């Protein structure tokens, strides 16, 4: 739901309180190699359906969140603090 985003800390808030960064990907190790880094910085699964992405509650608690959102319906299934981590990206 991209008119309201539910923040695990603040509750449901309007989208304009947030900044969206895009795919929530795990940052590769510094020595992971060019291909892995290319994948991280530039390539995106860009699925139609469930998607994990970073949102920042910029005008709220200023926490970064990982939001699970469906790109076709905009429904949000989950949102959690980014400090809890993201799954390893598919290579």
């Amino acid at each position, binding site marked *: 739901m*991209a*008119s309201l985003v539910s923040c695990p800390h603040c509750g449901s808030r*309007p989208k*304009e309180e947030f900044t969206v*960064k895009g795919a929530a990907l795990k940052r590769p190790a510094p020595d992971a190699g060019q291909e892995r880094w290319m994948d991280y910085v530039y390539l*995106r699964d*860009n699925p139609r359906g469930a998607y994990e*992405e970073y949102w920042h509650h910029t005008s709220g608690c200023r926490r970064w969140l990982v939001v699970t*959102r469906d*790109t076709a319906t905009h429904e949000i299934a989950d949102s959690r603090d980014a400090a809890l981590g993201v799954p390893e990206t598919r290579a």
Partner: protein
Amino acid sequence: MRYSALSVFLNGLRGNKGWGAAWRSPQPKPHYDVVIVGGGGHGLATAYYLAKEFGITNVAVVEKGYIGSGNVGRNTTIIRSNYLLQGNNPFYELSMKLWEGLEQDFNFNAMVSQRGVVNLYHSDAQRDAYTRRGNAMRLHGVDADLLDREQVRAMLPFLDFDNARFPIQGGLMQKRGGTVRHDAVAWGYARGADMRGVDIIQDCEVTGIRRENGAVTGVETTKGFIGCGKLALAAAGNSSRVAAMADMKLPLESHVLQAFVSEGLKPFIDCVVTFGAGHFYCSQSDKGGLVFGGDIDGYNSYAQRGNLATVEHVAEAGKAMIPGLSRVRVLRSWGGIMDMSMDGSPIIDRTHIDNLYLNSGWCYGGFKATPASGFCFAHLIARNTPQETATAFRLDRFARGFMLDEKGQGAQPNLH
């Protein structure tokens, strides 16, 4: 049948019973030399130029909906070639030149209207950036004029020159920029391609890409398998999804861009104006509606609809630019799905998979590029080498560090 004033007159006398179909509705053949995925502006233009310029007529365009149902039918109809970077500017100027002769070329009035595009600037830094850009345009022989505040005021006296939060200092104008009746572009190309033998197959969704020994041999569709010598993807908005059928991952995200039209008004604004202190650009259709838009909603989306916050954001910028808009009513909003590329520039390239060609990543600049995109993609498909103005649109530019980043935003597609 050739369209002309005379044909309109003669058919009118006969109760308009004589008009034939603008294009056929063929069943797909088992095999084509080229299958183009996507019956939008770029796909249809590609087919048209393949047939007309490169003599390749055994071509099918497969479209999952109706032709023009993608972004060619849901944009703000603006054309311009005011680009900064060497990798972009000649391509968009080629497009502009093609626009200039398009209607006579494909015998369809797409109402190409070179009414001028003015980009307002509100600060010294913006003026300097437009100076750089205008000069880059001039270097390539593209028309560009830097207007000062008074020149803008003389042209557009109804902008807010008195109470603005960010006072207008001037504008960069491209007189040859303007608008085009967007749907007619798809129809004109479709009719022109069809007349030259191209099969346009609507309601035909691609569900898979068949490969043998690594090379593409055809597509699975809702109307069965269609074999092809070359497969050309022109499915902007859904490029990632189609490419995934060939196990390719692209440097793209799909985002929704909203656009709007107001109720019909008597002539209100003659050129295209873009606001420099917020996201708003506006022109007026020949029918009278103000056609305007702003920024993308910012999140990945395949839903052709946006949210209210963006609508308000755009309206605020609109009224800040033109106070008289206050009591004008917005009639309709719609959303298009954009292939937002990682540097804001498109991709027209062969892929590492034999017989697979890719045209994608148009961000929200795809409409104006339609003719050149079709022409250059056709060139690439026909000759296997990029057309000279499209050499920078390579897929490997990201890995190699040759990004074409007009805005300098980096790999953050929602900021392009």
